[in-house]
């Protein structure tokens, strides 16, 4: 089916091209005939009348045998060596030289014809050609779209499978991990010396696993916002304890959101910023939250896939932070983007409509 979709417009296109070529030749023949016809009429009628009656005739000039002395190029006509000459590159486009006979003797006519007079022959096939090109382009675009849509569908299905798998895995890991952490804490409380240090490290590593499980669950779960109107001040009170060194710049305003989801999204951005730089600021106004840091900024090779899951530059990152932010912000009808700040650092913006 897809092959037919592509072959059909190609057949139409080739057909239209062939027809146009044939008619281009017919067009030349038509103009030649026209020139011969005009010359025949010049045998009977005065030039003035022929010019008036023939709209395709732009200019006409006639020569007698005596002119061939001054114009050697027309001599072959009077010798009977040449019967017709065509100069298609002349300024008017189509110039024909045709000998004719009058009662006074042989004469030669130089006829400048308007090539547009023959356009009626090729106008329709030309239209067909353009139509075929348009159809072929549309079919091509349609095919490309179909291929793209199928690939996107497959990619989404893969991601959904991955999400489900992550959720199951994370859930199954969470319980044993909780118990493991609990026993490690118990052991750590009683341990001394080296054993205590080893258990400290074990607990740290458990913490990393816990974060991964938490991120996986947050990423795999489809966010379901519980909307309510809050003041920005309330959000700031939630965020501040997690980001004591961040400079907050915001006047109070009201926003309709899911406070838990927005908090998690902003915290993820703040966490990235705090890990990247030592000066982090947060600016908020209706419709915008901007987190800026003075770190090294976003490496160019990472830019196109920043929000894809499992993309990270950190030695100990899950690469899910920004993917979770995007999921949350989209569920809140907003969008998030990350750019490089000047002179250095990164700038993350969450935007939403305030209408």
């Amino acid at each position, binding site marked *: 089916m897809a092959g037919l979709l592509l072959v059909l417009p190609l057949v139409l296109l080739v057909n239209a091209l062939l027809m146009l070529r044939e008619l281009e030749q017919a067009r030349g023949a038509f103009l030649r005939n026209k020139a011969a016809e005009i010359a025949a009429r010049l045998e009977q009628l005065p030039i003035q009348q022929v010019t008036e009656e023939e709209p395709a005739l732009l200019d006409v000039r006639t020569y007698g045998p005596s002119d061939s002395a001054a114009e050697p190029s027309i001599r072959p006509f009077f010798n009977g060596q040449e019967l017709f000459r065509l100069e298609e590159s002349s300024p008017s486009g189509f110039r024909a030289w045709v000998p004719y006979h009058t009662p006074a003797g042989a004469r030669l006519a130089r006829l400048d014809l308007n090539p547009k007079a023959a356009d009626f022959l090729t106008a329709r096939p030309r239209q067909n050609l353009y139509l075929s090109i348009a159809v072929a382009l549309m079919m091509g675009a349609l095919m490309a779209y179909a291929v793209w849509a199928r690939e996107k569908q497959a990619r989404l299905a893969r991601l959904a499978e991955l999400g489900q798998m992550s959720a199951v895995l994370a859930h199954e890991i969470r319980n*044993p991990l909780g118990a493991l952490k609990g*026993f490690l804490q118990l052991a750590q409380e009683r341990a001394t010396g080296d054993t205590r240090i080893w258990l400290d490290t074990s607990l740290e590593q458990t913490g990393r696993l816990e974060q991964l499980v938490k991120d996986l669950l947050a990423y795999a779960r489809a966010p379901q916002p519980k909307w309510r109107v809050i003041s920005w001040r309330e959000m700031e009170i939630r965020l501040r304890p997690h980001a004591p060194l961040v400079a907050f710049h915001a006047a109070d305003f009201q926003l309709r959101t899911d406070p838990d989801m927005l908090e998690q999204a902003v915290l993820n951005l703040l966490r990235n910023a705090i890990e990247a730089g030592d000066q982090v600021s947060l600016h908020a106004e209706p419709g915008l939250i901007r987190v800026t840091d003075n770190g090294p900024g976003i490496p160019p090779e990472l830019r196109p896939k920043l929000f894809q899951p499992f993309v990270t530059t950190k030695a100990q990152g899950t690469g899910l932070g920004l993917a979770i932010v995007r999921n949350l912000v989209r569920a809140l009808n907003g969008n998030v983007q990350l750019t490089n700040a000047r002179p250095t650092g990164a700038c993350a913006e969450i935007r939403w409509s305030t209408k």
Partner: protein
Amino acid sequence: MINPILVVDDDPGFRKLLETILAGEGYPVETAAKVADARRLCSSHSFSLVISDLKLPDGDGLDVQKWFAEHAPKLPSSSSPASVPSPLPSMP
């Protein structure tokens, strides 16, 4: 001699952890993996406290709480959401 604490959790790791913590504090502990086991134990023991997970294979923590409220009205209980132990209420 005080009555034991009943821990109801289907996750063996958490069950053992709670048992270890509570026993470490000197409390006698009994454990059950599901609602039916908890009910059976109730017929042979008197408990001073029941700590239960919310999601159990044959019911949920609220079922356990309701059942004990009917059969042992004086008993305090705690349901922990999704296997995360909540703070232990003070002993009677």
